[in-house]
Structures are given as C-alpha cells and as structure tokens.
C-alpha cells in the first residue's frame, strides 16, 4: 500500500476505503454519502431524466423538442414506460436504502406546513441540535418521491396498456399521472436548486461523497456532533 507522503499526487488508499463508510471523518472531511448511496441516487435521477425527456413531449407540444433528444415521438412513447419501470425499481432500492434515516423527529413533524417550509427557505429555520442526518424537508422530499414513484407506476400501467383497461379508468389514470408529475417536477426543481446554487457545498455530497465540517455544522449540527464528537458552538 502506498502512503500519501511517498506519492503526494495519489489519494491514500486508506482514505479511499474510509470514504466508502458513511458518517466518518476522513482527511478533514465528513463522508455523507458512500458510493452505494450515490449510485442509487444517480440511477433514480438518470431514469427520471429519461422519463422526463420522453414524457414531456407527449404531455404537451410545448416540450415537443425534448422528443428529438430521445429519437422522436414514437421512440418516446416506446421508451417512456421502460424508463418508468427502471425509475420505480431504482426508487424501491432507494426507499429501503434510506428508510432508516427518514423517521421524522418530534420537532420535524410540522414540516408539511407551508409556513415551516417558507421559514426554512428564508434561511430563518434554526437547524435542530437533536436532528439527525437529514432535516424535515429532506425527509418530506424522500417520502414524496416514494409516493410519486408509486403514483407513476399505478397510473402508468393503464396508460401503457390502454386496450386492457376501461376508458373511465384510463381517463382517471391520465389525470392522476399528470398531477403526480406536476407535483414531482416542482419538487425536483426545488431539490436541484437546494442541492446546488442555494446551499453551496451540498452537491459534492452526491458526487465525491464528502462534505466539509463547516457545512455539516451549519446544516446538520446534530449529525455533525454525532460524527465528530464536537459541540456545535466550539468555534469562537
């Protein structure tokens, strides 16, 4: 095994190994999402993107240009349900992978209220010292994604095989598929925004897997304390 001091351009193998364990401090950074988590997350994201690109041109001609990215309207119709099935399978893995961290703490139970979400978005929500790895908003988004995946699947099947279902059921399925999508799209737009521009330092948690100590202290002080054993207010 080579050491970092002998070959300064290489990452120490021990660090690579350590980075594949959640919630540990490695080389001054905290591992937030180990490799498996990141692969699952990006599989969900990629299958959703394919579903989006093949679904939106069928939804409205306003987004007809997206059909060109997947090979035309007919290709879109063919691949959309398969992308959907892949998305649901990936979401199922994600569900079991993250389930343990997604129970709402007592002071997070009001996150469904728009007032609480608005307070957070004004950056006025004081991060909970008792909170775990994820805050209430992230947990809410997790449950929304799981519910959405079920909604897409249940309403998508009659749309996939229209000849086998009565017309009224198909009409209801189309409406619910649209409603699910509209809610999902708004959620994903906010999710991408919060994960990139709005909260710098977050995106790397899903790429290289680690976050800085200051990031963890600011966004998830309870988790930070558990991982590092340091108090939130240690800084002077």
């Amino acid at each position, binding site marked *: 095994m080579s050491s970092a001091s002998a070959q300064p351009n290489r990452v120490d193998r021990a660090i690579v190994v350590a980075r594949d364990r959640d919630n540990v*401090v490695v080389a001054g950074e905290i591992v937030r999402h180990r490799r498996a988590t990141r692969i699952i997350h990006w599989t969900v994201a990629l299958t959703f993107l394919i579903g989006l690109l093949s679904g939106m041109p*069928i939804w*409205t001609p306003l987004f007809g240009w997206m059909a060109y990215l997947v090979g035309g309207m007919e290709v879109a119709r063919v691949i959309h349900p398969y992308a959907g099935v892949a998305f649901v399978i990936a979401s199922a893995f994600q569900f079991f992978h993250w389930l343990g961290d997604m129970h709402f703490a007592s002071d997070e139970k009001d996150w469904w209220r728009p007032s609480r979400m608005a307070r957070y978005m004004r950056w006025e929500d004081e991060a909970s010292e008792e909170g775990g790895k994820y805050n209430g908003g992230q947990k809410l988004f997790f449950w929304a994604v799981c519910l959405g995946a079920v909604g897409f699947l249940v309403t998508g099947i009659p749309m996939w095989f229209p000849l086998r279902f009565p017309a*009224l059921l198909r*009409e209801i399925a189309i*409406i619910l598929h*649209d409603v699910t999508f509209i809610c999902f799209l708004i959620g994903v737009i906010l999710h991408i*925004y919060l994960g990139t521009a*709005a909260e710098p330092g977050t995106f790397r948690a899903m790429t290289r897997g680690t976050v800085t100590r*200051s990031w963890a202290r600011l966004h998830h002080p309870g988790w930070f304390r558990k991982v590092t054993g340091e108090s939130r207010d240690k800084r002077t």
Partner: protein
Amino acid sequence: MTVQALEIKRSSAAMWGTKTGLREKPVVSKYIDTTTCIGCKACEAACQEWNDLKTVATHQEGSYQTLPHLDADFWNLIRFNEREVDGGLMWLMRKDQCMHCAEPGCLEACPAPGAIVQYANGIVDVDPSKCIGCGYCSTGCPFDVPKFHKTTGKMAKCTLCVDRVEVGLEPACIKACPTGCLQFGSKEQMVAMGNARVSQLKGAGFQDAMLYDPQGVGGTSVVTVLGHGHPEWYDLPRDPHVPLLVRAWKSILRPLGVLAAFAAVIGVFGHYATYGPKEPPEGDGVGEGRTK
C-alpha cells in the same frame, strides 16, 4: 391515410388550440337509414376490399354480427340487435364505423402533432406516419372507434374513404349498398334527407323515429335514421360527449401544470436573488484538525 390535396381544418396537438384551417368548406356526410338496411353486409365487404384490409376471423356469438366490435382491420361493422317492441320482434341493424365528429374527442386527446387531422370537409383521419400508438384517441372517443393495430403499432379506423372522396367518388360502403339505405353528399343534404325520412316514418306509425346527429360532439359526418328513438337499442350512446376528464386534462390541468413548472423555475431564480445562498459563516471550520 392522409391526403395532401385536402385542406386540414384541425390537427391534434397543435399549439394554439386545434384549429389550423382558415376557409370554411362544405362538410360531407354519410347517410344511414337503419329502417331500410337489410343486413346484407355488402358495405363490410366493400370496405375490406377498397381499403385492402386483412381478413379477420369472425366470432359466432349467436347472431349474424360478424365481430363483437370494430377492429383495426375491420372498420365497418353491421350491428345486429334483437328487441321485442310492442309484442313483436324487431331486428335492428345499424352500420357502425367512425362517426367523423365535428368536435372529435380522438383529435383532442391525441398528443402527437398531426397524427389525427380533420379535413375542411369534415373527415377525421389518422396519419400513421405521425401516430405514436399511445391509444389516447380511444380514451377520447365516445363511440369506442379507433383500434390499435398490433402489426403496425398504430391506430386504425374508417377514413370515410378520403382517397375516394378527394377525387369525387363516394365511399366504398355507400357504393356497394344495394337498397339505397346508404347515401353520401353534403352534410346539409344528408340532414335534410334524414329529416324527410323521419317524418315519413312517423306518418307510417314509427312515432319516435329520429335522426341521430348528436350535438354533444358538434354533430357527426354520419347521420343515422333510427326507426325507434332509443339510440342505445342500436348500441349508440344517447348523448355522447368528449369525456369531461379528457377536456379537463387538456384545457385546465395541462396549462396549469406548465404554468406551475415555469413558476417554480422563476421562483427559484427569484429566491436566489432575494435570499442568496445559505453558506457557513466565514472562517467556520478553518484550522480544525484533520483528526477524528
């Protein structure tokens, strides 16, 4: 089938509503008199032959009817219904095919631009080169007409012989009818002929005879004289409409959804401009050891 020479009045999935044509042209129509139909099925055979449709295996279900319902390879079906009326048996035959609605639900529901068109002469047609085979049209159709063709993966239905009509011929079914119960001409003429026949029938004792030209779909380019004023006896919906949920989906939910999506994107930029990013305080975390 699409025909280049014919002006298109409406098209599926067009950006600004469905209207594409400017000029008003005379609308054509079939005329079907169920009271003089003898159930010979010459129209069925003529339709299969002219449109080069494959032979479909028939189903024996205790009646003379060729198939239980229309098929992607069978666009013209005589429906045979038996009914006891005033102690006597009535054998009710009705030619079933695409009704070519003035406000077609199939066209409204279709997501593929130009896959379903309505020509200025009222004919509603599927363009297989643009159809994506999603089946939304069959969800939008109040008459359950468009059928999915398993070989082509596209929807198929009666074209009202648009290729014949375009060159001044009558549709194949009309041409083949031996009793004259099928006629073809302008919608105005056919409605006038139908109304005359209905009053004649009323005079002959068929008090509730009616002309079936359902206004819920804006009227149809197939007007049908019914000897008995009960469309459901002939497997016809009494008051067909484009399904309410299809209308709500296309004209309310979809624009709202598009607005909501754009609003979310604009809102995100507005949020960034107002509140900026949430970052750790300056210097926080700096100088802390790399140890655990």
